[in-house]
C-alpha cells in the first residue's frame, strides 16, 4: 500500500513539475491515437449515419429506376409493387435528368417529381425550410452545400426558375455526387425534388421522364434474392422492352463508404507513422532528462527501492500518460468522426460508438509507444549501479575510432559534426526514424500530385468521378497527416539538436577554449544532424511512395528528380531548423561549462 502511494506520489509530482514533457507526450501520442481511432471509426460512422438517415426517411429496401420511358415502364413498376414479398412502396415518381443553374453555376441533377403529401416510403427528411409545394424546389443537402444554395435562393431547372423552399436528406440514393437516378448513379449528379405537376409540364414526348419506385420488403436483408426475382421477372417481360435498374439499400450504403476508403487506409497508416515519430521524439526528450532520471533512480535505490520498483515507477508514469493519450484519441474520434464521415453532408449526423476493436487497437498503439519510450531508460536505470546513479552518470559516449580518425581530415565544423553524430548512434537512429516518417507523407503528397496530373482515363464518367473524389479526400487526409508529422519532426529535430548540444557541451567548450568559433560549433551541431536526416529521407521517401501504392495500386510513380529535389528540401529544412538550438548551445559561456561538475 505504502509503495503504491509512493509510486502515485512520484508520478504525480513528476507530471506536475515537468508538464512540458507530459504535454509533448500527450500531443505526440494523442495525434497518433486520434488518427488511428478516426481511421478505424470512419466506416462504422458512415454506416451509422446512413442507418439513421434511412430510419428518419423511411428509406427503401430496394430503389428501382426505369431505363426506358413510356407507359410500359410505368405499368411494369406497378406490377413490381404488387409482387409477393413487397410490403410497401413509394412512387412511381417521374425523374428528369437535366442541368440546373444556381448562382450562375451549372450542375447535373436528377429532378424527381413528388407529391406535396408525405410518402410512406422514402419521405426525405427536411433539415431546413419545408417540403415541396407547387413552384418550389427542395434540394438534397449535399448537393445544396456543394452549390452553396440555401432556402430562399433561386435555381434554374431546365430553363425555369424555382425558389428553394427546403433542404432535405434521403436514403434512397447514394451521397452527393452519386445521386443521379438516370440508370443508376451518374457522375457528379445531385438530386432535386419538385412538385410532380411541375415535372409533368417540363417533360414532353421529346424529353420523356424515367420513373423511380421505392420498395420495402418483408425481408430487408434478403434484397439480393428479391433483386434476382426482379431480374427474372424483367426477362420474362422482354417483349414489353422493360429495363429496370435496381439498387438495394446495402449497395447504397457501401457506395457511401467508397469515397472514404482511401482516407481510412491513409489514416491508419498515418497513425503508425505518427507513433514512430512520437517514439523518436519522446526518446530524444527522455535523453534530455537522462541524468536527472538516473540520479532520481539512484536516490530511490539508496533509500531501499529495488531496481524493479524503480523501473515500474518510471513505466507507470508513461502508462498513465499512454492511457490518457488513448482517451484523447478516442475522444477526438468521437467528436470529429461524425463530420469527417459525412463529407458531403448528405446524411444525418450520428455519433460513432467506439467499438471494442478500435479501443483495443488505440490502447495498444499508445501502450506500445509508452513501452518503447520507457524500455531504454527503465533498463538503464535498472542496470546502473546506485553510486554512479547518484552521481548522475549518463550513458558512456561512443567513439568509433575509424570515423573519428577520418573526421580529422575534414574542415572544423564537419569534423566536429561527424564526431558528434558518431557519439550517439542510438540517437542518430531515432532521428533518422523520426524524419523518415515525416518524409513518407511528403512523398505521398508528391505522388498524389502526379496522380492528378496524369490520371488514366477509364472511359467511364462514374469511375472517373469516384476516383477524383477519392483522390480529393485522400489528398486532404495526407495533407493533415503530413502537417502533423512535419510539426512533430521539426520538434524532434530541435530536441535532438539541443540534447546533442547538452551532451557535448564540455567537449565543445574545450574546442572553443582552443579556438573554435561559435559559428563553427553551431555548424558542427547542425551538421551532426545531417547523416540521420539524409538516412531518414532516403528511407522515408521510397516508403511514402510504397505506402501510397499500397492504398491505391494504380499509382503513377513520381519521377526520380522530383523525389530527389523534395528529399533535398527536407534535409535542408532539418539542417536550418537545427541551427536554432545549435546557435543557443554554441553561445553558452565556456568558463561556466568547464567550471561546472555536470559533465
Amino acid at each position, binding site marked *: 500500500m505504502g*509503495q503504491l502511494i509512493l509510486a502515485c506520489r*512520484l508520478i504525480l*509530482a513528476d507530471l*506536475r*513539475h515537468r508538464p512540458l514533457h507530459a504535454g509533448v507526450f500527450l500531443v505526440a501520442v494523442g495525434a497518433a491515437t486520434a488518427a488511428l481511432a478516426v481511421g478505424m471509426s470512419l466506416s462504422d460512422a458512415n454506416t451509422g449515419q446512413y442507418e439513421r438517415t434511412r430510419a428518419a426517411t423511411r428509406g427503401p429496401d430496394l430503389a428501382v429506376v426505369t431505363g426506358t420511358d413510356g407507359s410500359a415502364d410505368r405499368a411494369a413498376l406497378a406490377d413490381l409493387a404488387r409482387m409477393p414479398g413487397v410490403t410497401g412502396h413509394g412512387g412511381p415518381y417521374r425523374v428528369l435528368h437535366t442541368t440546373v443553374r444556381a448562382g450562375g453555376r451549372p450542375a447535373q441533377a436528377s429532378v424527381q417529381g413528388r407529391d406535396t403529401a408525405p410518402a410512406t416510403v422514402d419521405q426525405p427528411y427536411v433539415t431546413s425550410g419545408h417540403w415541396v409545394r407547387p413552384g418550389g424546389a427542395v434540394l438534397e443537402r449535399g448537393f445544396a452545400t456543394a452549390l452553396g444554395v440555401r432556402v430562399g435562393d433561386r435555381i434554374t431547372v431546365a430553363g425555369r426558375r424555382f425558389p428553394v423552399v427546403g433542404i432535405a436528406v434521403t436514403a434512397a440514393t447514394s451521397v452527393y455526387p452519386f445521386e443521379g437516378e438516370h440508370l443508376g448513379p451518374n457522375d457528379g449528379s445531385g438530386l432535386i425534388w419538385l412538385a410532380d405537376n411541375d415535372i409533368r409540364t417540363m417533360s414532353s414526348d421529346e424529353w420523356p421522364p424515367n420513373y423511380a419506385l421505392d420498395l420495402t420488403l418483408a425481408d430487408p436483408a434478403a434484397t439480393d434474392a428479391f433483386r434476382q426475382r426482379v431480374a427474372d421477372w424483367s426477362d420474362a417481360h422482354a417483349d414489353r422492352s422493360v429495363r429496370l435498374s435496381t439498387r438495394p439499400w446495402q449497395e447504397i450504403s457501401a457506395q457511401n463508404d467508397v469515397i472514404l476508403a482511401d482516407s481510412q487506409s491513409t489514416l491508419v497508416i498515418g497513425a503508425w507513422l505518427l507513433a514512430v515519430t512520437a517514439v523518436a521524439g519522446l526518446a530524444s526528450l527522455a535523453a534530455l532528462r537522462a541524468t536527472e532520471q538516473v540520479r532520481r533512480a539512484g536516490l530511490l535505490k*539508496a533509500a531501499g527501492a529495488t531496481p524493479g520498483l524503480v523501473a515500474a515507477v518510471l513505466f507507470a508514469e508513461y502508462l498513465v500518460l499512454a492511457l490518457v493519450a488513448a482517451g484523447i484519441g478516442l475522444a477526438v474520434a468521437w467528436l470529429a468522426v461524425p463530420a469527417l464521415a459525412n463529407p458531403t453532408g448528405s446524411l444525418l449526423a450520428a455519433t460513432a460508438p467506439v467499438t471494442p476493436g478500435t479501443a483495443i487497437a488505440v490502447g495498444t498503439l499508445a501502450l506500445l509507444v509508452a513501452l518503447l519510450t520507457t524500455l531504454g531508460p527503465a533498463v538503464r536505470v535498472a542496470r546502473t549501479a546506485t553510486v554512479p546513479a*547518484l552521481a548522475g552518470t549518463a550513458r558512456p559516449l561512443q567513439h568509433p575510432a575509424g570515423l573519428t580518425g577520418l573526421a580529422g581530415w575534414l574542415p572544423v565544423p564537419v569534423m566536429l559534426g561527424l564526431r558528434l553524430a558518431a557519439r550517439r548512434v542510438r540517437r542518430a537512429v531515432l532521428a533518422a526514424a523520426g524524419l523518415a516518417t515525416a518524409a513518407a507523407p511528403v512523398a505521398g503528397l508528391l505522388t498524389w500530385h502526379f496522380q492528378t496530373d496524369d490520371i488514366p482515363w477509364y472511359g467511364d464518367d462514374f469511375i472517373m468521378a469516384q476516383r477524383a473524389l477519392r483522390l480529393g479526400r485522400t489528398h486532404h487526409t495526407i495533407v493533415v497527416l503530413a502537417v502533423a508529422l512535419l510539426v512533430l519532426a521539426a520538434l524532434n529535430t530541435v530536441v535532438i539538436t539541443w540534447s546533442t548540444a547538452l551532451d557535448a557541451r564540455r567537449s565543445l567548450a574545450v574546442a572553443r577554449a582552443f579556438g573554435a568559433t561559435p559559428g563553427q560549433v553551431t555548424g558542427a551541431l547542425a551538421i551532426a544532424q545531417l547523416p540521420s536526416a539524409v538516412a531518414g529521407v532516403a528511407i522515408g521517401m521510397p516508403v511514402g511512395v510504397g505506402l501510397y501504392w499500397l492504398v491505391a495500386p494504380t499509382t503513377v510513380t513520381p519521377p526520380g528528380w522530383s523525389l530527389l529535389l523534395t528529399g533535398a528540401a527536407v534535409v535542408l529544412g532539418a539542417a536550418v531548423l537545427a541551427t536554432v538550438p545549435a546557435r543557443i548551445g554554441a553561445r553558452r559561456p565556456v568558463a561556466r561549462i568547464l567550471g561546472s561538475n555536470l559533465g
Partner: protein
Amino acid sequence: MTGGTLAIRARGLSKVHGEGQARTRAVDEVDLDVPAGQTLAVTGPSGCGKSTLLHLLGGLERVSAGELWLAGRRIDRLGERALARLRRRAIGFVFQDFHLMEELSAVQNVELPALLAGRTPRTARRRALDLLDRVGLADRAQRLPAQLSGGQRQRVAIARALSNAPLAVLADEPTGNLDTAATNDVLRLFDSLRSTGQTLVIVTHDERVAATADRVVSMRDGRFVDDVHLPAASTGGLGDLLGLGG
C-alpha cells in the same frame, strides 16, 4: 563467525575499480568492527577510499572481496534486490549533496523510506512529522527542497535517514556543502543521535566533525592507517567548545 553485538563487521573488505592497467584498489582488505551505538568518523585525503568504504558498508556497492556483516547478518553475498530491502530497514544515508527529490515536499521526502518499507501512509506521515520536529523543521514540512536553505535541506536528509529507525546511519561528507552555522546545526543533530545510541558512520574531511565522534579512523590508499578511540570527555569537551551542548 558472526558480528555478535556489533552493528557492522568487516573482514578483508576490498573494492577494485577498473581492469588491467587501470585497475585500482579503492578499498584494500579493510577489517572493521563498529559496535552498536558507536559514532565512527572516517577521515583521509580525497580519493583514499573512504566514500567507497561507506558505500560498501551500506550495500550501495558490491564488494570485490572480503566479508561483511550487518547486525550479525552476512550481506556481502546478497543480490541487488536483497540489498535494496536491507537498505530500507537497516541503513539510513546522508549525502553531501542532500539528494532530496526536488518534486517532493520535505515531509514527503522524509516519509519516502517508510513507504518503501511498506509502512501505512498514516504511520509514515506521523513518523516523518515527528522527525521533522526533531530536526527543527516542523514548520517547513510542506516546503519543496528548493524553498529550503542548504542546512535545512541537510536536516531534512538526516530526518529521512532516520525514517525507518535504521541500525546505522551512514553520512558521506554531511557538512561538505554547508556554511558554519548550518554545519553546527547538523553537528548538534548528530550529537543528539549519538546520545540516543544511534550507530553513526561519518565520512568527513572536517576535523570538527571528526572530533565529535567516539572513534576516528584515518584512511590512505584504501587502507586504515590510524584508528583512534576518543575518550568521552574529549568529545564532550570539543562539543562544548563548538557550542554543541544544547
